């Protein structure tokens, strides 16, 4: 049996490395498009200032991109290193989108990103513009395939368990690709990236306007970021995650947990704005509720109820018992050959095999589980409400504040009145919000999937590699040490070049070059 603390440490390591990776990814996703928009404007108008904008924001993009590449490598290694049972159990399904991501997207992005930086003198305007668009396309296609893989973890469609190989195998690639959970997540995530990059450009441009430097440059950047950011934030919110929640049971449990929806209420359910959820008693104290809203958002209908956690728990008790039967039959199949009647019997119960595996937490053999252990496993099958309830609200709040500021900025810059101190200060002040929203969003999606790595199929505690605590402490310390060092260096360079502004291009026409007559 694999030790509890190794699993916990593996989870911390995964959370730390992916949250860290996700500091850089959203900027890359969005900034590549902003660069492509700026450069398209350059090619269409022929105005040098748009080329300077592409190059300056491209410089900041490069500083960010380097760490995105660095930390992305970890993610690809980590499944095999720390989650080897996961890799063995679902690699047949989960590995395919990762391999396709490499071939279709990552190659494209990485091959052309070098030309983006160093091809200005070697390519025609049109060719260079095409290169920039290909980088944007590559990075966004990359997100598509990663989210196809992740969507399958949330809502595992198009695959089946094969007792001969003891793993999940693809039955329909089309279902895997057009998995509603994956599609919704893709749109939500890339739009979040566009909003993040827009807030980045908006805030820094506002800083220059406030300082009264390079205003022609900054105002144009501000206008582009405001328009793109407004569209992106609207997409994040409107096309948000909710339609994904109605698919699988686990997504239902996640929705119920986020909303602290303990009991199934008559449709349409009311939305708990705020309150103090209590997992043990399965109730929320001091709840402030708005009638109807949750039912309408969550189901997009007035008469479909949202299943409460108490009812999901009741259902899961039965599924754990069925899972025990499936596990018992699997043992017969694995040791005594694939006899047809046993196989048919196994197929009846196999959709609950994952729930049977939950019992491994309490008894290695599964088959001798007591009623008490079954109850524990069923309870364990529900996500933890309190962390989800709060992080979700933080994410949504960030989103709405950003929407407000982008809306204000868009209106102001459309009527060419973006030089208002209040608006500019707000634009700088909201800069951390998209990162907070992205990180809490990741948490809601992935913590809300617990206790599973693959929803209803493979429990997280079984997925980890058979490593020792020492292995885990050493590697975690290594990651945290190096990543902290890298982040300090990155922020130092980023701030230095933000302060320098477009003067860092040495074109001889920006603030420090004109004001002081010399290049810094």
């Amino acid at each position, binding site marked *: 049996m694999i030790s509890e603390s190794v699993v916990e440490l593996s989870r911390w390591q995964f959370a730390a490395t992916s949250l860290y990776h996700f500091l850089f990814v959203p900027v890359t996703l969005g900034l590549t498009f902003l660069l492509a928009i700026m450069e398209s404007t350059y090619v269409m108008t022929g105005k040098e200032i748009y080329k300077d904008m592409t190059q300056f924001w491209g410089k900041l993009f490069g500083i960010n991109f380097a760490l995105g590449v660095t930390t992305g490598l970890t993610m690809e290694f980590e499944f095999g290193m720390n989650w080897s049972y996961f890799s063995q159990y679902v*690699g*047949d399904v989960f590995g395919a989108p990762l391999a396709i991501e490499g071939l279709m997207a990552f190659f494209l992005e990485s091959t052309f990103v070098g030309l983006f930086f160093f091809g200005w003198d070697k390519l025609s305007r049109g060719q260079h513009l095409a290169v920039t668009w290909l980088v944007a396309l590559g990075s966004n296609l990359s997100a598509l395939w990663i989210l196809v893989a992740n969507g399958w973890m949330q809502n595992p469609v198009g695959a089946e368990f094969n007792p001969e190989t003891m793993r999940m195998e693809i039955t329909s690639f089309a279902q895997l690709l057009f998995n509603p959970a994956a599609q919704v997540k893709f749109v939500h995530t890339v739009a979040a990236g566009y909003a993040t990059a827009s807030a980045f450009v908006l805030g820094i441009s506002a800083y220059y306007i406030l300082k009264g430097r390079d205003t022609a440059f900054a105002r144009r950047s501000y206008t582009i970021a405001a328009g793109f950011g407004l569209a992106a934030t609207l997409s994040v919110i409107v096309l948000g995650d909710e339609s994904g929640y109605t698919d699988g049971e686990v997504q239902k449990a996640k929705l119920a947990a986020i909303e602290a929806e303990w009991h199934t209420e008559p449709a349409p359910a009311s939305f708990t704005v705020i309150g103090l959820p209590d997992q043990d008693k399965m109730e929320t104290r001091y709840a402030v509720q708005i009638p109807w809203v949750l039912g309408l958002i969550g189901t997009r209908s007035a008469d479909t109820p949202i299943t409460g956690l108490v009812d999901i728990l009741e259902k899961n008790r039965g599924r754990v018992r069925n899972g025990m039967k499936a596990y018992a039959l699997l043992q017969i199949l694995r040791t005594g050959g694939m006899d047809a009647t046993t196989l048919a019997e196994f197929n009846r119960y196999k959709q609950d095999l994952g729930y049977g595996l939950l019992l491994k937490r309490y008894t290695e053999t599964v088959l001798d589980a007591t009623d008490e252990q079954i109850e524990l496993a069923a309870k364990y099958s529900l996500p933890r409400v309190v962390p989800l309830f709060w992080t979700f609200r933080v994410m949504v709040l960030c989103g709405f504040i950003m929407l407000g500021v982008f809306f204000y900025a868009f209106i102001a810059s459309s009527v060419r009145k973006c030089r208002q101190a209040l608006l500019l200060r707000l634009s700088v002040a909201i800069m951390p919000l998209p990162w907070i929203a992205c990180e809490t969003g990741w948490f809601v999606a992935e913590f809300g999937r617990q206790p599973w790595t693959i929803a209803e199929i493979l429990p997280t505690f079984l997925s980890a590699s058979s490593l020792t605590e020492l292995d885990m402490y050493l590697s975690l310390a290594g990651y945290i040490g190096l990543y902290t060092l890298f982040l300090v260096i990155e922020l130092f360079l980023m701030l230095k070049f933000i302060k320098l502004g477009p003067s860092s291009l040495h074109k001889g026409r920006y603030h420090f070059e004109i004001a002081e007559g010399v290049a810094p």
Partner: protein
Amino acid sequence: MIFDYETLRLIWWLFLGVLLIGFAIMGGFDLGVAMLLPFLGKNDSERRVIINSIRATWEGNHVWFVTAGGALFAAWPPAYAVAFSGFYFALLLTLFALFLRPIGFDYRSKLPSQRWRSNWDNALFVGGFVPALIFGVAFGNLLVGVPFHFDNDMRIFYEGSFWGLLNPFALLAGLVSLSMLLMHGAVYLQVKTDDVIYQRCKTIVPIFAGITLLAFGLAGIWVANLNGYHISSVIQPNAASNPLLKQVTQAPGLWLDNYQQRPLLWLIPGLAFIAGIVTSVLSKNDRPGLAFISSSLMLSSIILTAGCAMFPFLIPSSSALSSSLTVWDASASHKTLSIIFWVTVIFLPLIIIYTSWVFRVLRGKITVAHIKANDHTAY
């Protein structure tokens, strides 16, 4: 699915080889160049010439490695799971070293401070040296056998230690990998630079070609006496992937079995020797472009030599013989292999086409004068 399971498994063994060879050729010269950086560049301008010789292409080259990892995951999931969790610290070190590359290239010349720059030069050296060494050591360990077993639920248990990876044969394989990438990097620098750096490369190419061939030859003799592996039960190339159903024997010299059965295979290691000598001659005679092709051939045949010795084994288990992973029992399902086959057939040629275009656009030598003229835009 136009191919049967057996054929697809063979194709995917070849594809994995293609991706590894692609990485050795493309990523390999970047690693070699990074290792040579502190030694061939005597001052900042020279070092910048060396770094800028790979500035715009290393990122794409690096993806060969990432994609080989992804393809291993998709096509050979148990092999991915065993190798990555078993070689835990070796991979962790590789990863930590590789971290230094993207930021090393991009951040180094952003500040003028000499201390800042020489720290990044050292970081780039580590980012080249550690992976180049560990890839070789890992390959060596595959030939030696890896101590792991599966339980009945297919959970992997690795029984070795990090220090166990550093056995003499594996270290020799590490030397092969190090010296061949140093040679390859030096040949590439000959293509991209002129003047003193070019001359220095010209001196070291034959030295590293010689060391590579010597170590490779020695490893070949050693393999003849090393424990090899052989499937002794009847092979079922179309059966579901369950590695626990076969019998495996282990005996000295078995790795040369394939070569004894098909003597034509000896041409592959033979080609490695010829290409090594040809590379040195071409480099000496100022034909760096041809030398690069020849050096790429040498790398390919060295990797193929090891692959053909091990076939059909991917990862032999030294502690539980029947847990060994082979082409016939460690692949993804027929359907998955077929899906990613089509994706590869469509995208790999595209990748080769656009990569060639990028190299064409960026052709020409990087000189000290170029660096001085582009002080603010060059790395």
